[in-house]
Structures are given as structure tokens and as C-alpha cells.
């Protein structure tokens, strides 16, 4: 099953099971079914609760906040993650703060879905990975879809926590297949050493030379790098993909990280103040004396994301960048 179909099923089952759940977004109704077709078929089944909206990102996230405040569950699709910037106020100053700023806990089951990332030649305003701009906002959680995590479990779990969340969805991932039955390919397997943390490993999960932590959107590049490291450099690298990026369930990752003593973080975000910095700080605090080298961050260049394919490739995180950085770091 393709990732986009899994996500579609997950949205469908939320709407089916929860008569108080709403899904809002631009151009999400049938027959169009959303810019990336994630919501295809849903408005035909739930015409009153799956609504195409005007071009009003700030407004519709505010509406989602209002639905949540009044006791509904709200899911809002932002057509391109870049435009979540237009909803920054509603997310940061209203939804997230409301959970606690009135001196008592206010449930706020709001999920803002953000198709993110480049690699499709959409240009500087349609290709960003804005995760980093939302890290460290009290009350706000960040998730990212992956080909390992079943969104039919993840999405209801996020809503049950009843705090506002952003769900990042890598655009290139939509068309990829979900992995099943613990098998990645002829070389690699996967399991879940902790809830919502997927681990990709070679043969046995207990031994490895290093650990690579990556958000779901980087899965393919990270898996490619893990294969190359093994086949071309005889380095056994384990890959960890947490569904929740922030707050990161660091305690759950520590046993795996401790064993390796060598940790890398790969993300598509452009350089500077990235999610990786947050991960590195957490790992350093927990394992400083046990690491062979400081956590190494691998990300896109410090740059806007250009349109032309060959320029985009120079800027964005590539499989080869991950591979090269790991090899060079371990060699030093």
C-alpha cells in the first residue's frame, strides 16, 4: 500500500469513528481530493465534515482551534507546508498556548497537516521543511509520517493526546510503499524498539557501528545510505525513525544509542537551528561520556531551495551526503 493510501485510510477511519471529527483544507473535496490526493473520496462520504475552504491558512487553522475548543477533533490540511507560516499566530499564540494559559488544562485536539520537502522542482515557496520553526513551542507537538508508521494508529493517538500537533508529510513519500512485516529489502529489516520509534537494522538489532536518527521524510535516503555504508564501506549503521519529532521520546532511544556510541542525525531542513540541534543536545546531555564523537548533524545547505533540478540537488540533503559524512566521521 502506498503511503498516501495509508494516510487516506487513517483520515477516513478517524471521520468514521468520530462523528465530531472535521477535516478542513484548500481544494480537498472530490473530485479533486487535495493537491496531493490525500483526501480523495472523503468528502463524498462525509460531505458535512470534510470541507474545502477559501485560501485562508490563518483563518482555517483558527477555525480548527475553535472546533477543538468546542469539543470536536479538527484536522486541517495546509496545501504546502511553506504556507503554515500564514497560520503561525493561530498555532503558536492561540492553539498551543490555550492548552495551559488559562490556568487550567484545555484539551485542544487539533492536527495541522503539512506536506513538506523539496525534490519536485516546485521552487523556493513550495519546497521547505519548516519543522524547525515550530520546535520548542510550549504545548505544541511535531510528528512526521514515515513508510513504517501506520497512520491508522498514529493519527487517532495524536488526537487522543488532545494537544495541538503539526503532522509533516514528505511529498515524495506519498507515492512510496509502506513497509510491512518487518522487512525493508533483501538486506534490511525493521522493528519498533519503543512505541512509535521504527528501527532499521542489518541482521541483528544488537550490534552496529553507528546510529542514524532521521524523520520519516528522509527514510528513503537514509535507507539508501545504510545500504551503501554496508555494501561499500562495511559499516553497519542502524536507523531510528521516531514518529514524534518534538518532544522527542529520548529515553526510549537511549539504549540503542548507548550501544553504538556514534550518533548521526539526518534531516532535509536547511542549515541552522534545526531539529537535529535539539536531538544532539538531548543525546549529549544523556550520553556525553559514552559517545565516541559529538552527534554529527547532516542536513541541507544554508540556502533557499532553488527550482531547477540540478540546483535543487546541490542544496537538498542527498543519500550520498549522509553516506559520505558517516564514512568521514568514523574514519577520523
Amino acid at each position: 500500500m502506498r503511503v498516501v493510501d495509508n494516510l487516506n485510510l487513517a483520515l477516513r477511519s478517524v471521520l468514521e469513528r468520530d462523528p465530531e471529527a472535521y477535516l478542513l483544507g484548500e481544494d480537498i473535496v472530490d473530485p479533486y481530493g487535495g493537491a496531493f490526493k490525500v483526501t480523495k473520496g472523503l468528502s463524498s462520504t462525509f460531505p458535512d465534515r470534510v470541507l474545502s475552504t477559501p485560501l485562508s491558512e490563518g483563518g482555517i487553522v483558527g477555525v480548527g482551534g475553535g472546533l477543538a475548543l468546542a469539543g470536536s477533533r479538527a484536522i486541517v490540511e495546509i496545501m504546502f507546508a511553506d504556507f503554515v507560516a500564514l497560520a503561525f499566530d493561530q498555532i503558536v499564540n492561540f492553539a498551543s498556548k490555550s492548552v495551559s494559559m488559562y490556568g487550567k488544562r484545555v484539551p485542544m485536539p487539533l492536527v495541522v497537516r503539512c506536506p513538506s520537502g523539496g525534490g519536485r522542482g516546485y521552487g523556493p515557496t513550495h519546497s521547505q521543511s519548516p519543522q524547525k520553526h515550530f520546535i520548542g513551542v510550549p504545548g505544541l507537538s511535531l510528528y512526521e509520517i514515515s513508510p513504517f508508521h501506520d497512520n491508522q494508529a498514529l493519527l487517532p493517538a495524536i488526537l487522543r493526546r488532545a494537544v495541538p500537533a503539526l503532522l509533516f508529510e514528505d511529498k515524495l513519500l506519498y507515492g512510496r510503499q509502506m513497509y510491512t512485516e518487518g522487512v525493508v529489502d533483501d538486506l534490511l529489516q525493521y522493528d519498533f524498539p519503543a512505541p512509535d520509534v521504527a528501527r532499521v537494522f542489518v541482521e541483528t538489532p544488537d550490534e552496529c557501528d553507528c546510529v542514524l536518527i532521521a524523520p520519516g521524510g528522509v527514510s528513503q535516503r537514509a535507507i539508501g545510505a545504510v545500504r551503501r555504508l554496508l555494501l561499500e564501506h562495511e559499516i553497519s549503521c542502524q536507523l531510528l525513525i521516531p514518529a514524534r519529532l518534538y518532544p522527542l521520546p529520548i529515553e526510549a532511544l537511549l539504549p540503542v544509542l548507548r550501544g553504538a556510541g556514534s550518533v548521526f542525525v539526518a534531516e532535509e531542513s536547511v542549515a541552522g537551528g534545526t531539529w537535529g540541534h535539539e536531538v544532539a543536545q538531548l543525546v549529549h546531555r544523556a550520553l556525553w561520556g559514552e559517545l565516541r564523537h559529538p552527534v554529527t548533524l547532516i542536513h541541507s545547505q544554508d540556502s533557499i531551495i532553488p527550482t531547477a533540478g540540478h540546483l535543487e540537488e546541490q542544496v537538498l540533503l542527498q543519500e550520498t551526503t549522509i553516506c559520505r559524512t558517516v564514512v568521514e566521521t568514523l574514519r577520523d
Partner: protein
Amino acid sequence: MTSAVATADRAKERTPLTDEDLLLLLMIRRFEEELLRLFGAGLLNGTTHTCLGQEYVPVALRTLIGLEDFVFSNHRGHGHYLARYQDLRGLLAEIMGREGAVCNGVGGSQHILRDRYLSTGVQGQSLPVAVGVALRLKHAEPGRLVCAHIGDGTWGEGSVYEALNMAALWRLPLLVVVEHNGIAQSTPTTAQMAGTIADRVKAFGIDHHRTESTDIGEIRAELDPMIQRSREASLPLVVEFATHRVGPHSKGDDTRPPDVIERAEAHDWHRSYATAFPERFAHADERARSLVEEVVAEVQDLPPAVWTEQ
């Protein structure tokens, strides 16, 4: 009278237009069609929004807006650019990421800056910026104006109203050109806009003019005095073109029912001009075709664009 007959009658009444305007209209049409073909053939990367059906808007405006005026364009901006600069080569190179690209292949189809022309891919973003430029022009270069193109869907963005308010308050020479094609991506205007653009604009005390014409001469005659006034009195003006998107929103993503598409096509300037001036039209079309074909052949063979000013 059936609508087909009405259209044909209207076509016969077309005011004459210059060879230059006719060629420009057809060049833009061929350029956009060629882009869709290149996409279909897998020769283009990324995305594009063609202005098929709406080419006449910037062509009509081009004699009313000078190079010293600013133009803010949007995602559907190829026609805006070509009507102003007639630069098929620079634009195609930009879209294909080749040497000679207007913005070195960095911006692509919807992020272009050339002298006093700028486009951006975030809806609604340009209007407050246009107000800032108009504020400066009012003081530094009286008589010049800022022309900003937006679609009907973009009226969903709050920034549009913040901008209109400031433009009216400060009496700024801002011309907002609304290309009201009745649809935003896949959403019909009726499903995304309450009330009308005219009433919204009126609420700010800004002049609003709506035109249904696709006739270059007629549009110019209608708009010339209004735009003059906006310049001379330094006042905002909103001109709403009732227009029709003949092609897809982007590429291969037209989910409109066939009768809706047919209705859009019935309003196409292309048919009316072809009927009104068949020989000149055929001649200009031939010329437009060969100009576009030449440029495509040339640009395809160019080396990749180089980006040095990172």
C-alpha cells in the same frame, strides 16, 4: 439567440488591433501550450500554471502600464512577463533551468524578478508589498503606479484587506488587477467567496471597475481614463476582469465537468479574434508558432543555469 451565435456576433464587432498586439497574444498562447506539451513529454521539471484564456489581460494593459511602473505578478504570471518584456527565451530558460534564465533557474516559473517586475508563489503576499512600493512611488516618483495581479481565490487571504485598507487610507497609486476566472485551483468562486469583490472594494472607499470584455481596444478605452486618474490623483483602483481559465490549474489537474470547460472556451478571445480577422490571425499565428518553436529548440540545447549569487 443561442450563445454560440451571440459569441460569433460579438466576434465580428471586435475593434481592430495592431499586428504587435495580435502577435503577442498568440505568442503567449503558443508558449503556454508548448509548456504543457513539454511537461507531457517529460521534458520539464517542477510545476507551471499557464494563463491560457487570460493572455489578453496583460496584453491589454501593456500600453497603460509602463516600464517605470511596478508590476507584481503571481503564480499564473507567464503572460504578465511576456506582455511586458516579450522575452520568450529568458522565461523558458528560467522554467527549464538553462543558461540565460531571468533568475538563473533559482526562481522558476513563479518567482521572477526583473527590474520593476516581481512575482511570488504565495497567494496574497504581494499586495502589502505593493502598498509599500506605492508609498515610495507616491513620494519619490509621482505619476507612477504599482500594478498587482491577483486571482479571485486570493481574496480569501487577510493580507489583501490589510493592503486595501492601507492603500485607501494613504491614497496610494495602486492598481489591483483581479483576474476573476471563476475558479481557484479546483474550487469554484461560489464555494469560496461570500458577497462580491465589488462590494468588498467599495467598503474601503476604493474605486472598482469590472469588465467582461476580451477586446484589447475596448478594454484600453475603458481603463485608460481610470488608470490616468489613479496616477494623477494618487488613488487605489481595483479592476476586475471577468475572465475564463481555458486550461488546467497547473498541468493535468482539471476536474471541471466538460460543460464548464466548454463555457470557458466559448469566451476565449482566441476564437473571437480568429473569427473577426481570419487572415491576419492565421498569419500572426504562424509567426507565433515558429518564434516559440525556435526558442524551444534553442533553449533545450543550452547548458544548465549557473547560480553564483547564493
